[in-house]
């Protein structure tokens, strides 16, 4: 399986990494106190990890090559096959529904609150999945629309006292308008330019929120944002978390439904086709610009709704919640879960957001792991953890 040559090569790669990481991993300087610490043990670990990582890396690269040569039909992931199976599907979905229904009553408030943020990420991920996964437009400024939603709720409530339920549709409209307005000038650009420009817009919105004191209260943010009410009845702190939990769950279900319907609609198929081949699409008479703009605007709508829920949940927002890292986290959810696959994105959001919350000890390594995972997923499994399935019309043979 592993040849002698590969072991030798990995040995040298381990050595290479030891040399490469020497100044940064081993030497730690404190320039204020003028102390230098040498951490030689790190060198040893880098060598070991480099050696094994190289072996595994080469092995998987070879497997990928062989798979390409064998030209196997890309098999449908297990979860899709299970979901297609009638006998499995109903009990599975029932169990899932029961689990989510009793979750806030069984687990303490802390867990419910974490689950709420994970579900907000599911919503954001599904929204971004329209833009990145289906339409193939890399949007690095997605968090701007999230901020639009959050600030819409905070400001409308602060100045006019408008309640959560009225803001929700208003923010969706605002998100849609913001998406169209930002999309209009930038969507003429291709792939990587688009990524940078959207990144720029995301940063512009954050910097403006930070510096325009009269409008957004600057870096101090806006506090005392009320939790949603139930027909005028305001819950206590504990019950209100449970209430928000159910609202988010309902919104997520709505998102799954809408995005699923969109994906298989005329416009959804246009997005996928546009992602795969722009020129062929134009030849087929698809309006490239309009199609991209709808994807961008619809993605923004969901981000904006997510922002409202976020503001209602935390009751305090400031521009620091809307940095570029937030955009990249959402992008990680989509990419690692599986671009263009709703189930993948949901699983990705739950895993990527819940795991670091529970593994507090390794939470500081979160971004490091996200970065590494992005590279690894792109190199070995570009379709993500759970691949999306295209709807294929199958002819049934007619018995004679």
């Amino acid at each position, binding site marked *: 399986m592993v040849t002698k040559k590969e072991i030798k090569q990995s040995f040298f790669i381990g050595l290479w990494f030891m040399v490469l990481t020497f*100044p940064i991993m081993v030497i*730690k300087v404190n320039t204020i106190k003028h102390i230098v610490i040498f951490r030689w043990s790190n060198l040893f670990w880098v060598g070991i990890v480099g050696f094994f990582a190289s072996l595994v890396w080469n092995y998987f690269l070879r497997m990928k090559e062989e798979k390409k040569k064998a030209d196997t039909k890309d098999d449908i992931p297990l979860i899709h096959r299970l979901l297609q199976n009638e006998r499995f599907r109903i009990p599975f979905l029932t169990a899932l529904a029961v689990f989510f229904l009793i979750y806030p009553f069984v687990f303490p408030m802390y867990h419910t609150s974490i689950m709420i943020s994970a579900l907000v990420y599911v919503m954001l991920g599904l929204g971004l999945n329209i833009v990145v996964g289906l339409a193939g437009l890399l949007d690095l400024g997605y968090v701007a629309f999230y901020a639009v939603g959050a600030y819409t709720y905070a400001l409308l409530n602060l100045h006019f006292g408008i309640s959560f339920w009225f803001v929700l549709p208003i923010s969706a409209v605002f998100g849609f308008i913001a998406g169209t307005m930002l999309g209009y000038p930038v969507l003429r*650009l291709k792939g990587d330019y688009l990524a940078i*420009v959207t990144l*720029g817009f995301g940063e512009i919105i954050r910097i403006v929120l930070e510096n325009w004191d009269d409008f957004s209260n600057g870096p101090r943010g806006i506090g005392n944002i009320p939790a949603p009410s139930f027909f005028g009845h305001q819950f206590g702190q504990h019950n209100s978390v449970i209430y928000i939990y159910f609202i988010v769950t309902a919104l997520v279900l709505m998102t799954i439904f809408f995005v699923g319907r969109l994906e298989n609609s005329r416009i959804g198929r246009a997005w996928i086709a546009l992602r795969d081949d722009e020129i062929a699409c134009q030849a087929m008479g698809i309006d490239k610009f309009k199609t991209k703009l709808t994807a961008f605007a619809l993605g923004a709508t969901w981000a904006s709704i997510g922002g409202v829920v976020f503001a209602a949940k935390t009751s305090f927002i400031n521009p620091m919640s809307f940095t570029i890292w937030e955009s990249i986290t959402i992008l990680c959810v989509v990419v690692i879960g599986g671009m263009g696959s709703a189930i993948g994105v949901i699983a990705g959001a739950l895993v990527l957001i819940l795991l670091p919350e529970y593994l507090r000890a390794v939470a500081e390594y979160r971004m490091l792991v996200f970065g590494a995972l992005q590279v690894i997923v792109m190199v070995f499994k570009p379709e993500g953890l759970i691949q999306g399935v295209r709807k294929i019309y199958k002819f049934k043979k007619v018995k004679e």
Partner: protein
Amino acid sequence: MRLFKIILGVAVVGFLGFLGIKEIISDPVYFLELFLGGLTRGSIYALIALGYTMVYGIIQLINFAHGEIYMIGAMTALIVASVLGLWGWNSAVIVILAFVFAIVYSCAYGFTVEKIAYKPLRTAPRLSALISAIGMSLFLQNYVMLAQTSEYMPFESLIPDFQFWEPFSHIITAVEMTIIVTTIIVMILLGILIKFTKIGKAMRATAQDKIMASLVGINVNRVISTTFVVGSATAAIGGVLIACHVGQINFMIGFMAGLKAFIAAVLGGIGSIPGAVLGSLVLGISESLFTGYFWSEYEDVFAFTILVIILIFRPSGILGRDTTSKV
């Protein structure tokens, strides 16, 4: 449409020119300071932008991790300089060694990043390579943060205040002068490398047509690696110089600097080396003037606005050639 663009352009330039001349006449020294500050800033952008534009010219990839390479260069120089400083070495030796280590390590990182994150994706869709690049950038930032510290580290200037420069130092400091001179030297060397050496010829050939270049016996993989190494080396020089100028670094410096340099490369016309230099100088000077005369908080907003305007009205940049997409 074309006429409209020209009229708009003339109007904007005329208006700004009018305002500018009024300001310059009222306080020429302030203007000169801002201008030279912008020139320094632009020189640093140019050193980083070269790496972007060279890589983009050859494999059409935005090397998102390039800003991180620059940060690692500055970090390595800081570490080497502090260790040697504690050991009591001669300061001239420290300067040389810090530069050498920064350049060598940045090159090594650039080389490794290419092999890990980009080479397996040579034939994959461009979106995949871009996401992989973003992942690499995230990884390197957090790697430095976890292995070192997340705080700002003071960086003692390696460049001494030269005696002979004393009379001019109220307008432009010795460090700024060093930055500008170094940039000019690096540009000339790079120009020679690309115009007159064999590997430079191979780079130009690969940029034009990868398949054809490999048919005539050019080792394309080696050319790509060399490009990453050369780009990383210039970024490392920029990293050390800017760290001397600003006086403090942390693990985040690469991100904004990388973005700005990218904007500069796009402004000049991505893929074109003179374009990258010109774009960097234009961006650096206009940013400096903007922060000096208008609002300094919106410095980054200004740079991004320039990017958006350029991409909408002239996507190929100042010196870039128009390209048409073919089936």
